[in-house]
């Protein structure tokens, strides 16, 4: 050492501490021998990982992620969510399936998410194949690629997954060199827009027939049968739809003439699969804990599946019928185990309508008593605002910071009756009043514009309802309230979904949606308390696209492909969505948007998704559509059974109190 400062420092005793004084620096070898042998090789180089946003999205290795010896498993399953890691990691369905598959010794299920646009570019330039997070190995070498399809605006991301994986985009061009591409999730209840890109669609809840499919796969591969032969057998497993064996035929006016199998021995109807007993279904007790903050950075307890309410616009409310509750004692055990296994500092309940869970009080009291003292936050979404929920919320949240949420969905009582939303103005004002007196001052309101039969008065009533809530706030004496209130109303545009009573509803043009939002906006400015009110609305161009894909048929698949070729990706993200290339894609493929959106559908029209049987009958949906047009409400499942057909599954709310 010749340098001055070092010499000076060297005279101090403190240097005995320094590792630098050691003559053999190799003592601090970074890894021990065994680590070097076992450490995973990452698919991306350090140089790439350091040049992109959030490299943690692509390295796997999270706590509770499952590593297996690839030589000791028979089936490798890549489970993909076609959106960015933080969104995909928040999805409960994938966590359930990941856990369920990995419980099988012969299967290794790994995760795949869409590379963000920065990495997407690098992977294309350098021809790096898409890989799964755990093994970091190419997806193309897997036996299955499962893709969960949660919303229409992720369709181009599905093509990105296939493209980056170097898997042929069209199912008909795939060989045994490619994985079996299987789709699941709510959008698969109308799979037709994506039909040509998938080998199989799984219609229903994943806990049901996957074991059967995996066993069939193993035996088929062992026997050396052709890919087509395997798919033909798979098509005979209940709930599995293999689109290449079905063909649509059209009338001259473009509507569907017929739809059915073109091969012998495949069923003409696909029956939705559900778990009858959700309490004893598998549940991920040790979910993966991401390094980076995912949207859902907490333990999630799914308290029930389905909803008794029957709102006529709501697809989930029909798809997941009948409503099935999980036993409260089981949920308490899950809460303890999952908090211990993850270390999360928050627990949240998940369901379509938590207030309808019959054991809610018991469960919430338990969570507060057991975990509040340990600094665990308790989050209770989808609660109806009443004395009970306000009491609970005051125990688990900071009142001054939190806001109340109401989803009246429509501004007027007339329209709320049309959509069968059982929330009245009286209930809203009563709930808000109690909350204001309890110290809250922020309210969020959610509405939809463009609902069937909507008039200008209905639109204006959105602003008027918001104002009435503000007036209720200012009834409180000045010295008792905390400054001004903040009422934020947001509206999205209604998109009719398959298997709802509104599946026959017409949509509007983009311009018409904007005109309606402007009417509401204008009416807000007319209100007495306008300074306490805020109004936001959702983009209209995305709504139109969602409408096309929600009720599209097989012919709109080529629009998705064309839009993808034109560079569309991450269409669910405001900053990456571009409407122009989409419009270009429609023009290039000659697909007429208005055929799928504004056109009036007759009740006897054959719909592209009619071959799927969700257990709720088309007759019930028709009945509900007619009652909507009359403005007649239908009571919820617990008040009175409406005979929707879901009782055929033999469980859930349909049989409550009938044992």
């Amino acid at each position: 050492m010749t340098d001055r400062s070092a010499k000076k420092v060297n005279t101090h005793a403190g240097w005995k501490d320094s590792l630098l004084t050691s003559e053999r620096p190799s003592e601090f070898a970074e890894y021990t021998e065994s680590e070097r042998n076992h450490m995973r090789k990452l698919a991306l180089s350090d140089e790439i990982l350091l040049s992109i946003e959030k490299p943690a999205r692509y390295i796997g290795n999270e706590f509770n992620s499952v590593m297996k010896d690839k030589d000791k498993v028979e089936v490798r399953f890549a489970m993909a969510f076609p959106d960015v890691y933080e969104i995909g990691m928040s999805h409960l369905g994938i966590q359930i399936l990941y856990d369920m598959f990995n419980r099988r010794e012969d299967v290794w299920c790994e995760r795949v998410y869409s590379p963000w646009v920065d990495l997407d570019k690098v992977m294309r330039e350098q021809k790096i194949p898409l890989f799964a997070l755990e093994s970091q190995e190419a997806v193309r070498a897997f036996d299955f690629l499962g893709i969960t399809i949660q919303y229409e605006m992720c369709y181009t991301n599905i093509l990105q997954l296939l493209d980056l994986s170097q898997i042929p985009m069209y199912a008909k061009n795939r060989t045994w060199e490619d994985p079996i591409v299987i789709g699941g999730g709510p959008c698969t209840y109308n799979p037709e827009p994506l039909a040509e890109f998938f080998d199989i669609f799984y219609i229903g809840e994943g806990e049901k027939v996957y074991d059967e499919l995996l066993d069939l796969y193993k035996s088929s591969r062992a026997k050396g049968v052709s890919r087509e032969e395997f798919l033909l057998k798979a098509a005979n497993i209940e709930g599995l739809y293999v689109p290449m064996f079905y063909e649509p035929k059209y009338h001259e006016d473009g509507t569907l003439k017929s739809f059915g199998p073109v091969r012998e021995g495949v069923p003409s109807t696909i029956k939705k699969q559900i778990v009858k007993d959700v309490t004893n279904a598998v549940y991920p007790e040790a979910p993966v804990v991401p390094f980076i903050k995912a949207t859902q950075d907490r333990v999630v307890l799914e308290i029930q599946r389905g909803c008794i309410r029957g709102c006529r616009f709501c697809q989930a409310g029909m798809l997941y019928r009948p409503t099935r509750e999980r036993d409260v004692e089981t949920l308490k055990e899950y809460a303890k185990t999952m908090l211990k296994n993850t270390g999360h500092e928050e627990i949240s309940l998940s369901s379509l309508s938590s207030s309808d869970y019959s054991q809610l009080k018991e469960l919430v009291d338990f969570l507060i008593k057991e975990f509040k003292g340990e600094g665990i936050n308790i989050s209770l979404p989808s609660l109806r605002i009443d004395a009970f929920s306000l009491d609970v919320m005051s125990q688990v949240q900071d009142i001054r910071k939190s806001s109340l949420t109401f989803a009246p969905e429509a501004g007027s009582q007339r329209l709320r009756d049309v959509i069968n939303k059982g929330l009245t103005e009286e209930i809203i004002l009563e709930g808000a009043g109690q909350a204001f007196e309890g110290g809250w001052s922020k309210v969020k309101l959610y509405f939809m514009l463009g609902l069937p039969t909507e008039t200008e008065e209905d639109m204006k009533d959105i602003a008027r309802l918001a104002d009435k809530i503000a007036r209720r706030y200012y009834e409180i004496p000045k010295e008792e309230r905390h400054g001004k209130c903040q009422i934020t109303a947001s509206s999205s545009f209604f998109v009719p979904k398959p298997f709802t009573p509104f599946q026959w509803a017409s949509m509007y043009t983009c311009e018409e949606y904007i005109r309606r939002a402007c009417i509401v906006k204008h009416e807000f400015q007319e209100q007495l308390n306008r300074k306490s009110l805020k109004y936001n609305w959702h983009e209209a161009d995305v709504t139109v696209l969602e409408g096309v894909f929600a009720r599209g048929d097989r012919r709109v698949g080529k629009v998705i492909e064309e839009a993808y070729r034109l560079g569309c990706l991450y269409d669910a993200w405001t900053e990456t969505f571009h409407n122009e290339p989409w419009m270009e894609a429609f023009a290039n493929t000659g697909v007429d948007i208005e055929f799928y959106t504004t056109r009036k559908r007759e009740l006897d029209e054959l719909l592209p998704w009619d071959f799927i049987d969700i257990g709720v009958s088309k007759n019930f949906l028709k009945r509900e559509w007619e009652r909507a047009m009359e403005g007649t409400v239908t009571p919820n499942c617990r008040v009175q059974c409406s005979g929707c057909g879901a009782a055929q599954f033999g469980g859930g709310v349909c049989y409550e109190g009938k044992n």
Partner: protein
Amino acid sequence: MKVRIKFRKYGALKFIGHLDVMRFFQKAMRRAEIPIAFTGGYSPHMIMSFANPLGIGLTSDGEYFDIELKEPISSEAAVRQLNQVMVEGIEVLSFRQIAEEKKMTGMAIVAAADYRTTLVKGEFPENWLDRAKEFIAQPEIRIMKQTKRSEKEVDIKPMIYQFRPVEENGGQITFYMQVASGSVENLKPGLVMEALCGYMGINPEEVSFACHRLEMYADTGVDGTRQLVSLENLGTEIPQTPEKGTQCTQMSGTETEMEPA
């Protein structure tokens, strides 16, 4: 009771940023059932403070954070419980009791750090070893340092306490250095490498280094003379609690005295 935890970070964990490592340990504390203390107030959070955050891309054998315990746990048990809930790429090395004074915790006391940097991309000239020795023998090493508002020239030489270029494992160009670190003065090893490249006439864009932190030190010297002690050595091992079920609220010397001889 205040405790200092030392850990190492290697492999893929170098891509996990400081804030996420903090989040990771918050959850790990719960998984390992470490009796960590919380702040009061409406939304309590763990009392935890990290020393000198490590940048993304760096690995380390000497990372530290301090916590407060609400009840005692032995060092041995705590290290074992924590390592049962770690992931590949992160390992807890020690768990030691430290002095109670506030000024002795976390970031405030860090004064120096040891680093190893290795050339992983690009070429150095044949005579690089001699050149590197000449580089460090300069009376001053002036570089342009970016600040928030402007760029200014600084002499980094006084902040380099030790610098040793070596060839390792058959030709691996490696530098060991000890530099000023912490809130008073802080020198990043990358900046030293940049200065070296500048001195040798190498375009810094064409080379890259793997950087590994080896240790962090506090300065216990008085009257401005440096006396460096590793943060770990400022703490002491917490012994096993005598017997399960034995009443003990305080973990201290008095308790060992009460033990039968």
